[in-house]
């Protein structure tokens, strides 16, 4: 099954767009990419001016520092952050053609844009100023969150952990794994820089056990480095969620309101660490993005292609055309992965957080069938589920939220209290049934979906998952019953740790510790919590659900 081969050499042709792609089935593990070369030239024919959004990150939009008519080259700083944000650089040689409130448009000097070995204008910060280089290069979290990396790394972990998210948990996406085969040494260097900047004593790369080939490549790059280890994850969704990574690698389950620093750690995406390496060692600003293209693409038989350096700002359709073009009629185009991705238009530009571009089959018509939505924090949100229901021509009669989906800031951004571990869904399914639905459309994780399968079909509800049309497009089995273990089983490479069943005695397991226990070593949390209140002659009731070293004193 596994085909991971590199289509050779970029052709310099004006008619046919040359491709440099890694073709891979996302579930591939076979050792076939040994001949991979480190050349990442990509030529994309731009159909119009490229569009660099002023907001490609968490925070406020950047402020342009060029004006219409300015000549720019690849790497020219074109916008600076105001407050939280990250620099934006030109990804092409050309002329600024238009500036709006939302974007800077650049007319490329050549319609065919190539990346790769291309000379890039380096950042000005000195090489010793590690953090300065990262910040200046405009690195942001490339797993999709877009948090400015210069801000994230500006922390003293006092010997804590840099946790590298290489879970690549979204099915179909393959660019993270491809990176680990092609750029393992650079990735490891990036981790070492991140550790140095944050004063961490340990780096941990969290990766799914099934990616044996990529693990092998990483292990090779880690030879002789004893403060970075690999942690093996089970093959369920989600494992890449920030707090899930912390729980799996450190054994600490943080509350939804906590930041990773409360577990003495930062979590950083595997592509982001590579960009950190590039910024520091090569002085290279972020001008390109690794993207997986999949779905109904001509000549791919619904396979998966990885583009290593797509210039930021080119159109989605140009990337699809570079991959072969859309094959016939389609349903929607998703930017991102099947679970968390959002529909986009052909004219939308690629940003620093674009991970996947997936073209789906047309939607089936359910002719107005009544549907109940079960919204999960780990997958599609309520609006996205309503969008899918509309595309299926379903009529929404009820919306339920998973018990564990919490909205701590009240801004509509939900987080799961314990990602990947189901709290039970029977009541939600019954509510949906009672609302008169015949269909149930869910966005749940592997474990919760499995639980829904335990009650919804029995209640006479037809189960649909928000990823169904995507999985069906690429010929994958749809999300339904869980047949795999939530734990890593069997032998693991020496020196690695793994998400073992806590009751098993297999080697490599991580000791589970409570949040408070973990916080004990952190300065912020070792402060005693003092609570004083006069108690009249009534009842004083103290209830401590869990904890350790609790002292209760009664003082007059």
């Amino acid at each position, binding site marked *: 099954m596994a085909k991971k081969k590199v289509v050779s050499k970029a052709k310099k042709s004006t008619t046919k767009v040359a491709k440099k792609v890694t073709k891979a089935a996302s579930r591939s593990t076979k050792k076939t990419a040994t001949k991979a070369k480190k050349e990442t030239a990509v030529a994309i024919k731009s159909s119009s001016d490229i569009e660099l959004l002023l907001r490609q990150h968490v925070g406020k939009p950047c402020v342009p520092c060029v004006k219409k008519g300015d000549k720019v080259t690849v790497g020219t700083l074109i916008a600076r952050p105001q407050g939280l944000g990250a620099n934006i650089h030109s990804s092409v040689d050309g002329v600024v053609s238009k500036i709006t409130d939302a974007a800077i448009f650049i007319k490329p000097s050549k319609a065919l844009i190539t990346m790769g070995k291309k000379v890039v204008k380096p950042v000005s910060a000195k090489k010793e100023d590690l953090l300065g280089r990262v910040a200046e290069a405009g690195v942001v979290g490339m797993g999709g969150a877009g948090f400015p990396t210069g801000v994230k790394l500006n922390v003293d972990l006092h010997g804590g952990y840099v946790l590298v998210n290489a879970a690549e948990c979204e099915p179909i996406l393959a660019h993270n794994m491809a990176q680990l085969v092609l750029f393992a040494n650079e990735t490891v260097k990036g981790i070492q820089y991140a550790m140095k900047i944050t004063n961490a004593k340990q780096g941990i790369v969290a990766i799914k056990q099934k990616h044996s080939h990529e693990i092998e490549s990483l292990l090779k790059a880690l030879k002789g480095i004893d403060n970075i280890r690999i942690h093996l994850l089970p093959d369920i969704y989600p494992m890449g969620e920030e707090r899930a990574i912390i729980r799996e690698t450190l054994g600490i389950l943080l509350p939804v309101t906590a930041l990773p620093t409360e577990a003495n750690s930062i979590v950083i995406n595997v592509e982001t660490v590579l960009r950190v390496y590039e910024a520091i060692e090569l002085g290279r600003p972020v001008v390109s993005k690794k993207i997986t293209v999949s779905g109904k693409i001509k000549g791919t038989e619904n396979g998966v292609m990885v583009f290593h350096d797509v210039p930021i700002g080119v159109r989605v359709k140009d990337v699809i055309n570079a991959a072969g073009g859309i094959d016939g009629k389609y349903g929607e185009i998703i930017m991102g992965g099947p679970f968390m991705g959002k529909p986009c238009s052909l004219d939308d530009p690629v940003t620093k957080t674009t991970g996947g571009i997936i073209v789906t089959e047309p939607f089936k018509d359910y002719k107005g069938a009544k549907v109940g939505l079960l919204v999960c924090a780990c997958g599609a949100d309520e609006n996205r589920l309503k969008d899918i229901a509309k595309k299926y021509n379903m009529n929404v009669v009820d919306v339920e939220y998973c*018990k564990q989906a919490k909205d701590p800031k009240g801004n509509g951004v939900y987080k799961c209290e314990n990602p990947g*571990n*189901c*709290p*039970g*869904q*029977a*009541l*939600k399914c*019954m509510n949906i*049934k009672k609302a008169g639905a015949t269909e149930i459309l869910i966005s749940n994780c592997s*474990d*919760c979906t*499995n*639980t829904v399968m*335990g*009650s919804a079909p*029995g*209640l006479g509800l037809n189960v649909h998952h928000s990823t169904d049309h995507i999985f069906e497009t690429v010929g994958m089995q749809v999300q339904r019953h*869980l047949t795999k*273990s*939530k*734990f890593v089983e069997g032998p693991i490479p020496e020196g690695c740790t793994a998400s073992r*069943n806590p*009751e*098993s005695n297999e080697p490599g397991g991580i000791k589970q510790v409570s949040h408070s226990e973990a916080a004990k070593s952190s300065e912020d949390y070792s402060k005693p919590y003092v609570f004083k209140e006069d108690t009249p*002659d*009534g*009842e*004083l*009731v*103290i*209830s*401590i*659900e*869990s*904890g*350790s*070293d*609790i*002292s*209760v*004193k*009664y003082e*007059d």
Partner: protein
Amino acid sequence: MSISAEYAQEHLNDPAVLCCRREAGTKLSHHDFEDPAIFDDLVSSGLLKLDGALTIGQAMGSTLTKTMDSLNPILKDCVDKVQDVAASAVASSATPATPAQASSVTQSFSGGKLKIHIGEGKGIDLEIPMGLGGGAASTGATGTAAVGASATGSAVGGEKVVRTLTRKHFNITEVKRGKETKIDGTTLYIREGIEKEAVDSQELVHDLKVDIITKDNYHIYSETIMDTQPIATKEGDAELGTGVTRVLDNVVMMLTGTTDEGVQIGEFGSSEGYLDENVMWNRPSCPDHGDIIIRGTVKIENLKNMERPGPLAAHKAFDVITQEIRLALKELDEKYCVSKEEFKQVRRPGKKKVALVKEIMGQGAMHDNLILPVEPVGILGAHPNVDLCNVPVVCSPLEVLDGCIHALTCIGPASKEQSRHYWREPMVLEMLFDEEIDFAGVIFVGSPQINSEKFYVSKRVGMTCEAMDVEGAIVTTEGFGNNHVDFVSHIEQIGMRGIKVVGMSFCAKQGALVVGNKYVTAMVDNNKSEAGIENEILGNNTLCPEDAVRAIMMLKAEMTGEPIKKPEKEWNPNVKTQNIELISSVTGKPVELVKNEKSLPMSDKYKKKYANA
């Protein structure tokens, strides 16, 4: 869905069913169990079979020996061992490291308690000063004794009569119009032209018609009935709830009305139509069959029907007439008094102390109640509970029976308690005459419109009950839906203080509780309708003696620790029938059930709207 550690402890004897797939080797905790509250639904939909399931107590702490999917009961052969429930409780306090099993320490302390509960933990230090406990506790004991000793006065066998109320009844056989308002023997004359004064007294009232409706004339059209009131007055300077009250028998005041355009002054349904088809005679709230009805039909300014001043003006205008009758009643010769009734408010120290909490409407517009007027069901001197912010007001049972509530309520006609209801409130009468309990008082609490205010007032109800130190409480309400939010919150606030509580409401089919909590375990349904609905028949589903008897028995059962059976999944009128039979056989007194809408001629409106319900 998975349950909390505390909830699991409460359900140790319920079947253990996995909420989600769990793999072999999982040590079972509360995180793994499905909520027993939904088992009925799961079983009836065929998703769950509970045969052979271990209890939560037996399964918690055991290790699964095979991977199992959600909604599978945990059987004996699925776990490494079956926990000994009794032993595990002991074991848990001995080994506090065992997760999810609570150990608790209770220490009597300074008249109250110091209660420390630690769900899980280690290295826990508690420092509590010694010697404080004993002394304070004995002070408390002496305190109680002192109260007992001071309760002398008119004490009979430890009982204390707090106050008495005497009702003098005067019979009326005929109501006529005349030159002046007076009572001549058994004939009541109402002054001709009094309507104009009534109308002029209120800016918003544009018209008021008075007619006198006798039994032969009950088949007469009426606008929606806003209130039915007794005609009663205090003798001398006596305050409401004490002294002597004079009341006219066989005659009632009935206020009806619309706006100028003819919009009924009602919200959820209205009772307009022929009186004989729309009034459930002889309910505490309603006219008795045979009563002479002095009916006022008002017209108020358009659009004012849904604002507070509108309905209030209608009541005020009508009271101009009632007040003139009251004054005539004061003058009536004592010789026409046909009977006397004496009500004693008796406190019985040593018996179980109980309170009655009556939730009354307080959302505004016609949902209001005037509390404590000078005259029975009068206006003067009373304060609308909306203006009192709906906070609890404690009244003596005799104040209630003396008309301390002038009701403006206009929720569904079938369940609303009109002013006459309080005058003869069956729950108050039942508790007043029950020698097995110490009836402490009646707490009125308004039902506000806004949720935050609902919880504000229900917390005050809890505090009031706590301060009264009662052992049990009965909470009643009228209407259903919106007011159920605070109704169940009252029950929660009372229940969480360790006070036993019984709720009374119309529920049945249409009025099923929209919210709930773990203290809503003892409920009496006031429904009388055949179909279990609000059918717009005035007073049909209000609290009657047959409901009061069940509530007090239920409260006594709770206070003596007898279990109350869980409700059935769907409304089943047989539950009431069985309970009534049970009570009759225990007390030896038959409980006569009141009639319902079936005893009335069916109106066209009813045929259209409800006959097929």
